[in-house]
């Protein structure tokens, strides 16, 4: 069974199509990079895959579940890193993760492990608002894997990250199905076996790692 099967998924913002009949199949364990210019529809596609947005039309099945009807069940099995870190500035890094453990019903014992993975142990007790943008992004990535999801949806997680940050992305993607939107072709080549290129909401092409290099 495929991890993601999207058939003719479209989305309009008003009269403007943000996604136009996108087809996508992602097998379990696959890492797929979504490429494209600004405004190509990458974020819209990823938000639909993460169940944050309902498509205007089309069919979407994720992990064998209907992504339009069984959104809550699916959310328990996937992790999503949005373009903005979306963390609570008044809470410490540790408290941010503990809070999301409580919401997900995950064991709080996973917090130190997640902080270690994101190399944030040293700043665990600092308020998130005092962390650099890159540290906040690493915290958001650590939060996405607190509940050990099967599927990761990553929307430009490399924004504001240094070279070590790319290693963190590789570490969290390892052993999971992942869809990664990025502008960084080198990162896409390094981390993903397949690509989906969008332009103006349409699929321009799908390819393999070899094709990205070419």
């Amino acid at each position: 069974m495929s991890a993601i099967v999207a058939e003719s998924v479209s989305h309009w913002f008003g009269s403007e199509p943000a996604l136009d009949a996108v087809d996508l199949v992602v097998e379990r364990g696959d890492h797929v990079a979504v490429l494209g210019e600004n405004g190509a529809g990458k974020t819209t596609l990823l938000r639909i895959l993460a169940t944050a947005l309902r498509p205007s039309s089309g069919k979407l099945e994720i992990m064998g579940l209907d992504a339009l009807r069984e959104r809550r069940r699916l959310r328990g099995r996937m992790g999503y890193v949005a373009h903005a870190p979306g963390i609570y500035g008044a809470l410490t890094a540790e408290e941010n993760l503990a809070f999301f453990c409580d919401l997900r019903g995950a064991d709080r014992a996973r917090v130190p492990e997640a902080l270690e993975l994101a190399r944030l142990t040293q700043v665990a007790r600092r308020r998130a608002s005092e962390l650099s943008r890159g540290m906040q992004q690493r915290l958001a990535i650590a939060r996405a894997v607190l509940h050990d999801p099967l599927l990761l949806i990553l929307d430009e997680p490399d924004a504001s990250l240094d070279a070590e940050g790319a290693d963190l992305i590789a570490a969290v993607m390892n052993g999971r199905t992942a869809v990664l939107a990025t502008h960084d072709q080198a990162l896409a080549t390094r981390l993903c076996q397949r690509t989906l290129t969008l332009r103006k909401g349409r699929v321009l092409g799908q390819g393999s790692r070899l094709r990205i290099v070419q």
Partner: protein
Amino acid sequence: MTRSIAVAVAIARKDLVAEWRTRELVPALAQFVVLALVIANFGFQIDSRSAPAIAPGVLWLALVFAGLVAFGRAFAAEREQATLEAVLLTAAAPAAIFAGKALAAGLLLVLCEAVLLPALALFFGVPISFGLVFAVLLATVGMAALGCLFAAMVAQLRARELLLPLLTLPLWIPFIVAGGQAVQVAMGADGTMDQALKLLLDFDILFVVLTSLAARFVLDD
């Protein structure tokens, strides 16, 4: 059920910790209610005979406007930090998320009431009885439920500051009518308080149930 309670408690605790550390809302609201009482004190000719007639209206006006600010902030802070989506994508029940937000906002309003009621006694010379406090607390429950639901509904809209009072105030009228009656009786007017308190309790039950059911459609869709 236990899981939903745990989620609601986690959300409320997070909001209260954030408010304790930032002190964004409660000090400003406390100043606002005291200033409202000062203005009312100068605006009306208050003596021992007129005070019990004027004080209930001033109390509810101050409470309603403080409530609009408190409940509006409940979701505005999430919008500013782009955190609401992360919370909704955790698979936690929307009703539990909503209950946690309403609980925290309601408790913050209760803190303002702890300033408002003694200040009302000071400026207007009216007695603050157990019945009065109970009536205000009962009204706060229902007002918090409705206020937070509409705050969630308008959080992503551009004209949210205008829309929140327009949507919320008409549905708060039952609380103001029943609560106003209870407060007037507590301040010496004729009538019985029991009926007004029972009515407030009925409204609380009705609106807490309705808003919990509606939360799913507002937060998730």
